[in-house]
């Protein structure tokens, strides 16, 4: 199991603990804008780029779906495949919002992932640097933000 690679060092500890405790195969922590903050289980920047874009879009869709169906946004999603399962949820740290998507198999369970994700959220809350407390909203430059975060995780293009 490889250690997480992070664009912001303060998330490394909580992300590693979540990965180990919940026995996740892979996972990505990102801002709702699609900018990656940390990842584990991936060696290819293109995969993380796709996951960030899809997670960001799924998050926006599921929130609106929740509003339409239930009058309030859906913040957590679980999809059980034949072999692997996907857990997707938002994590709040102060006013800052993050999204997390993780993959697990029969070595874990949804209940276990939910428990350790709640602990992960508490850890983010506790460790959130003060300068980070100012909410990072989307800059409008989705592609640029995504590429900068991928450079931080995997190194600049050409050196990956």
């Amino acid at each position, binding site marked *: 199991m490889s250690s997480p690679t992070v664009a912001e060092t303060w998330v490394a500890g909580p992300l590693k603990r979540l990965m180990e405790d919940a026995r996740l195969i892979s996972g990505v922590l990102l801002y709702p804008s699609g900018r990656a903050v940390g990842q584990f289980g991936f060696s290819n920047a293109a995969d993380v780029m796709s996951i960030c874009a899809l997670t960001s879009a799924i998050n926006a869709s599921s929130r609106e779906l929740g509003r339409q169906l239930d009058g309030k946004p859906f913040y957590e999603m679980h999809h*059980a495949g034949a072999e692997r399962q996907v857990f997707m949820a938002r994590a709040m740290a102060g006013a800052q919002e993050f999204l997390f998507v993780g993959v697990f198999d*029969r070595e*874990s*369970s*949804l*209940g*276990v992932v*939910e*428990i350790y994700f709640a602990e992960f959220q508490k850890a983010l809350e506790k460790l959130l640097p003060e300068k980070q407390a100012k909410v990072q909203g989307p800059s409008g430059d989705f592609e640029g933000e995504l590429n900068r975060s991928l450079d931080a995780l995997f190194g600049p293009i050409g050196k990956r």
Partner: protein
Amino acid sequence: MKAVGQVVAMLSHVPGVLAAMVVGASDGLIVETSPMLAGAAVVGDSRKHTAALAAYLYSKVTRASQAARLGNPAFMRLEAEQGHICVVGARDVVLVTIVTPDANLGRVRLDMMTAAKGES
């Protein structure tokens, strides 16, 4: 087959049982639970955590038991400083009880096994 609500109600009335739960074996999520008995020495509501981790532990114990060619575990009891956690498998669910240290474990075991037979 008894309804899960009946199983939980029956187990929660066994002397010494602080909480009884029916939990999904594969996802570790609570299907049905009794309230945590007043006076239980726990901070906050620990049932969700207990359910998920007990189901997870039971799945690992099942693998260990099968690896040792002993078949599936019939009954699992975890003895802690301030009580016990008992788990019995019943097909797609596991029955979980949180029990006081002075409870009649023989009675708890018997009632859980009987309930599990009714569930399967």
